[in-house]
Every structure is written in structure tokens, then in C-alpha cells.
């Protein structure tokens, strides 16, 4: 079972993600540079956080045209689990793999703080170990994290159960307090908060179990866990 962490110029959470997958969850993990094709035998793909291309034009807009995105799209069509975290989420919306868009936070500030999420959909490969309504204490760190979708898209998101995580309280002005969404098939998930920064006791001594379930959900879907 192999997980790929895609690296763009300016990714800076790639090593945190790799460390968590490799050292905490003992998963075969490899980095894949965004200009190289992805191998076919990959079981899950993670687009990590950071500032691809220095957020020039818009966060994620330039990376969305990287060669690797065509392969990510093909794997999304095959139903392979794909998770975009923070800048990874921005790249997924800019490439059209997920609906909506991420705007500058309402405060216009870069926000780096702990938040609480509530699980709205526990059918995705990254949320299947949660109860609906379960809370996740987790940090955010972004400047462009305000999820926006028009009313028609929001209706569709509700209809097809595509809202995966919401903030318990409004933190940045996101539509319907949305923190994470999935595609219609549910295998592509994007979220602004950073689960890789919340799974270890050393940096999250109060409750690291909740974020752990995001990775355990993926490993369950991959058949590593029962």
C-alpha cells in the first residue's frame, strides 16, 4: 500500500505530511515532484499545504496547471482517495476537482490558530472512522481560507452530502462555516485545517485522537486497517 505526497515549488507541509504517514502510521510513503508522472500503483494521494508558486496570481492557481494534475484527475476518476490540505485544497478547487473557491479571510489576516471542526459526512475515505457530529480540535494556518460557493452550488453540496467538515464557530467568513468538502463521488476531499499538525501527542497533548482518525479512515479505506 503506497501513499504519494505531491510536492510543488513552494510546498512546505510536505515533510510534515510525509513524517506523519511514514513514522506515525508506518505507511509506505513517497514524494512525487509535480512535473513527473504519478505511478499507477498508488493507493492514495495527498496534496500538502504550503505556498505553491508563492501564491502568485491566486493561491493554488498556478499549481492547478502543473503536469501532475492531469494524473491526479485520472486517479480521481478511478476512485482513488485524494486529500488536499490547505494549499492542496486550494489547488483542488482551482483545478476544478472540487467545487467552490477559497478567498482571502474576511479579516484579511493570515490566521494561525486552533479551531474546532464538526464532522458532517462520515462516508469519505478521510472521515469514515468518525461519528456524525464528532468534534475535531485542529489548527488552521492560512491567508486564503474563506470557502465560498454560490447558492446553487451550496444547495448541490448539501444535496449530495459534499460538506465533510464545518467549523464549530465562524472563523474566517466561510459560506456555511465550511472547512472541508468532497467531490460527488466522495473520494476527493479538501480541507483547510492541518491534520498532520494535530496527530502527535507532543504537539497536541489535549486531544490528538480526533485528527488521527482522518488518517486511520484513509488506511481503513485502503484495507490496511480493518
Amino acid at each position, binding site marked *: 500500500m503506497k501513499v504519494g505526497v505531491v510536492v510543488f515549488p513552494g510546498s512546505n507541509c510536505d515533510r510534515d505530511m510525509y513524517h506523519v504517514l511514514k513514522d506515525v502510521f508506518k505507511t509506505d510513503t513517497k514524494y512525487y515532484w509535480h512535473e513527473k508522472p504519478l505511478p499507477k500503483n498508488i493507493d492514495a494521494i495527498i496534496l500538502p499545504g504550503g505556498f505553491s508558486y508563492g501564491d502568485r*496570481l491566486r493561491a493554488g*492557481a498556478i499549481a*492547478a*496547471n502543473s503536469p501532475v494534475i492531469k494524473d491526479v484527475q485520472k486517479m480521481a476518476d478511478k476512485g482513488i482517495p485524494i486529500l488536499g490540505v490547505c494549499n492542496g485544497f486550494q489547488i483542488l478547487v*482551482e483545478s476544478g476537482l472540487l467545487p467552490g*473557491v477559497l*478567498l482571502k479571510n474576511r*479579516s*484579511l489576516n493570515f490566521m494561525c490558530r486552533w479551531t474546532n471542526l464538526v464532522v458532517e459526512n462520515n462516508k469519505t475515505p478521510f472521515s469514515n472512522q468518525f461519528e456524525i457530529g464528532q468534534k475535531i480540535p485542529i489548527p488552521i494556518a492560512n491567508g486564503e481560507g474563506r470557502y*465560498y460557493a454560490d447558492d446553487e452550488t451550496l444547495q448541490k453540496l448539501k444535496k449530495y452530502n459534499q460538506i465533510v467538515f464545518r467549523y464549530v464557530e465562524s472563523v474566517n467568513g466561510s459560506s456555511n462555516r465550511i472547512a472541508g468538502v468532497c467531490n460527488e463521488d466522495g473520494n476527493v476531499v479538501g480541507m483547510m485545517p492541518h491534520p498532520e499538525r494535530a496527530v502527535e501527542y507532543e504537539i497536541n497533548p489535549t486531544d490528538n485522537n480526533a485528527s488521527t482518525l482522518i488518517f486511520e479512515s484513509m488506511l481503513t479505506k485502503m484495507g490496511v486497517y480493518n
Partner: protein
Amino acid sequence: MTSFEVHVTIENKPGISDPEGETILNDLVLKGAYKTVSKIMTAKMLKFTVQEKDQRAAQSLIQEVCDELRIYNPVVSKVSFDVLKA
């Protein structure tokens, strides 16, 4: 072929909040002597220099660039074009 400068203005669609514009209006302009100003909207402008046969061809090419490469995000933004002889 002639050289043209195409100015592309990217701005929010109506209904999308513009906190930067609101702050400039409420916390700078309206706090001064300029009470007749009622709205400020921020935008981003890109200036493309391009060689094309006429103004129309220059605009059409840059429109294609903007649409194909998602220079603007059509979910929240709209674009307008001004073509000048460079």
C-alpha cells in the same frame, strides 16, 4: 503585426464581499473629508504586451489566455479588457 498592450482588470462579481475595499472606504476615505464617496472596490490588473494584427485580435487572444489558463476564477471574478497601442 502591431504591438498592443492589453489591460486585464480582474474584479469580484456583484455580491462577493470585498473586505479590502470596505476597509479603505470606511476607515480611510469616509473618516476624512470625502463624504460623497459611497463605494470602493479593489481589483487586480494585469498588463499583457502582445503582437497581433489588430486590436480585436489582441483582445481575443488575451481573452482566450484568461479563460484557458484560469487567469481569473470565474466562480467569483469577472474580467474586462482595455486594448491600447503599445
